[in-house]
């Protein structure tokens, strides 16, 4: 600690998942912890149990003269906006949302997750032996669906290139419908759903449901002849005991974005970001792909992946989300 920004106060308000959701709450907090280590800022978090807690928690930070308040999840967008308006001298950052028109003292942190999951889909299609790959979500909300849309797009793209016919179980962008366990808590549902997919012959499963995915990983590990794809963080780190079956993880580097925000805000102590907002992409490493399990894919595929990445970055490849939204 003791860096330039010592005494700079950062507070984080979680969404209802709780701080240990193995997902955006956890990652947002990691960003702040990094800030504490690297910049010596003061950081803390408040868990929300109900929607009505958001404002309560934000108020607490406002009253504690916090310099930067990070709100995690678009669910907090309305409260964040109103408090930002009421407290122009406080900086805010919100994960998974950006305002149009932008608000001066709020930085929206959004992520083109579909870009990364597109690549994951591509890999999945490459490694499957049964010709069936699967994905499912917790609840059908945009920040979840975006993973699945990109994933399917990636598989389709692989099929085009290789003339294969790999099926995606659990999501259908055209029908805008798929498999959802209906919650972000029940790891048991995760395991059972995983087993259903395995029984139907899928041998790669991506779970976009926070901790629920761990149940799925357990199922995959038990089956032994399939792959699991983690989301948000690198699961070989956060759930290391499953490393042997983790094909890769779709990284949504919320921590990076948060830390970046802390840096810029604490450096220039002034209020506001001038409406500038952050969009995590493959280009700026806001989203990315964790290392692929060694030996899982051939070198040619590795090279193809590089092209895919470039294609997505320079826009020649459509990773799906924008078109999906425009088709709604």
């Amino acid at each position, binding site marked *: 600690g003791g860096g330039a920004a010592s005494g700079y106060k950062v507070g984080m308000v979680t969404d209802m998942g709780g701080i240990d959701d193995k997902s955006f709450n956890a990652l947002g907090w990691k960003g702040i912890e990094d800030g504490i280590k690297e910049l010596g800022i003061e950081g803390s978090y408040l*868990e929300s149990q*109900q929607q009505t807690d958001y404002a309560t*928690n934000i*108020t607490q930070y406002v009253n504690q003269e916090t310099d930067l308040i990070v709100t995690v999840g678009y*669910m907090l*967008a309305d409260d964040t906006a109103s408090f930002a*308006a009421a407290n122009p001298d406080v900086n805010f950052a919100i994960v998974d949302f950006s305002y149009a028109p932008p608000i001066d003292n709020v930085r929206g942190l959004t992520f083109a997750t579909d870009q990364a999951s597109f690549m994951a889909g591509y890999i999945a299609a490459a490694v499957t032996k049964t010709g069936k790959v699967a994905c499912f979500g917790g609840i*059908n*909300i945009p920040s979840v669906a975006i993973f699945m849309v990109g994933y399917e797009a990636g598989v389709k793209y692989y099929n085009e290139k290789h003339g294969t016919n790999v099926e995606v179980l659990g999501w259908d962008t055209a029908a*805008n419908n798929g498999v959802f366990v209906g919650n972000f808590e029940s790891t048991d549902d995760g395991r059972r759903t995983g087993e259903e997919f395995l029984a139907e012959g899928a041998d790669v499963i991506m779970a976009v449901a926070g901790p629920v995915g761990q149940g799925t990983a357990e199922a995959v590990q038990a089956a032994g002849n399939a792959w699991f794809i983690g989301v948000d963080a690198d699961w070989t780190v956060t759930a290391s005991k499953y490393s042997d079956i983790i094909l890769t993880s779709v990284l949504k580097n919320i921590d990076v974005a948060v830390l970046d925000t802390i840096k810029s805000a604490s450096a220039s102590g002034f209020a506001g970001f001038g409406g500038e907002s952050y969009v995590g992409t493959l280009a700026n490493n806001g989203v990315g792909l964790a290392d692929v399990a060694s030996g899982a894919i051939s070198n040619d595929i590795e090279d193809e992946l590089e092209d895919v990445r470039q294609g997505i970055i320079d826009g020649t490849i459509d990773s799906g989300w924008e078109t999906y939204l425009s088709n709604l």
Partner: protein
Amino acid sequence: MDDKTVASAIANAVQQPKSGAPTPKGQHRRGGWLRQLLVPLLAIITALILGALVIAFTDESVFQAFGGGFGRGVGQAFSVIGRAYGAFFSGAFGNPVRIISALISGQGAQIRRAIYPLMETLRISTPYIFAGLAVALGFQGGVFNIGAEGQYFIAGLVTVFVGYAIKGLPAIVHLPLALLAGVVGGGLWGAIPGYLKAKTGAHEVINTIMLNYIAFRLAEFMLDANGLMARGDGRPVSPEIQPSAYLPQFFPNQVELRVNVGFFLALAAAALVWWLLYKTTLGYEIRTVGANPRAARYAGMSVARTIVITMALSGALAGLSASTDILGVLHYMPNAFSSGYGFDAIALALLGKSHPFGVVLASLLFGALRAGAQNMQGIAQVPVDLTSIVQGLIIVFIAAPEIIRKLYRLRQPVEGEELVTVRGWGGA
């Protein structure tokens, strides 16, 4: 003449119990309400003490201190507890000194800041009161409504719809209309299990549980990012309601002070439920059906009809907890609008002994607990889940006052009437 005197003897004996001895079962006692409050008070204190122990003995710093000697350990323990509960109470009721000085200074901003915690407590207890009343009313009518959560969802949906879809109405029309929508929505959702119980005997406990899940999915469907009631900014939330449907706030355009007229509505609802239950023929019917359905039938009451009405009223009250949350606090309805009121409500009804005014007190207590815990989390990093622990303990102690009496060597009190709930599955 002779056995008249016997009777009067018995009567006298029953009326003036020998001190110490409990009176025959069910003897009422007027007055002495202060003593009535003593046990609940001690129950709360005891629960808080146990909570404190939990805090102290799950805190690393305390253990380290104990490493450096018992005395220092204890000292550290007390400082940790002090810090936590300091935060807790200032979060629940505010800091009296600060309130006074603020009032003296007469500066709006300071005053608002000072009374904020208290206002927050009132705000949180508002939906609790409605939900608690819902379950209590059910108990009085012999039905066990575990469905407050589901009725909350449905009421929320219709309320918010009326709130945003209808435009250009004056507030005096729009607001009542939105509230009414909640009443109707919750009422209908509650009436379903009531009807099924009355007509087919299907148990309301199962059906209300089932309807909770169904309501939750229904809300999820409607509020899906591209659902029928979605706002359209890619988020699974409803549009904002029209300002004409807002419940007036006590402190207009203060984002943090969200306490609103809903609180008074809740108090009014409690009074209304009390009047309904104890002063009206309908209430008499509800209580009779609850206490002895066969006698109710003998007395010419329609048991089926009464059960449906009871469940509908219960649902309507539960619905209002959603309406006030939406019209007074959130002004929109998000997906996964989970509240946890459903089960808290049971606790509230039980704490309040199924009596409307008891429910109000219990709700204020729970409101304070949650407000305090939120603050305790922020300042002392104590997990919010401590509230549940304390709540659970409070219920235990209030339900089993003998424990408290043994603990504090109180003498047996005159027994109050046994609390009205459903016993088991009734199957009435």
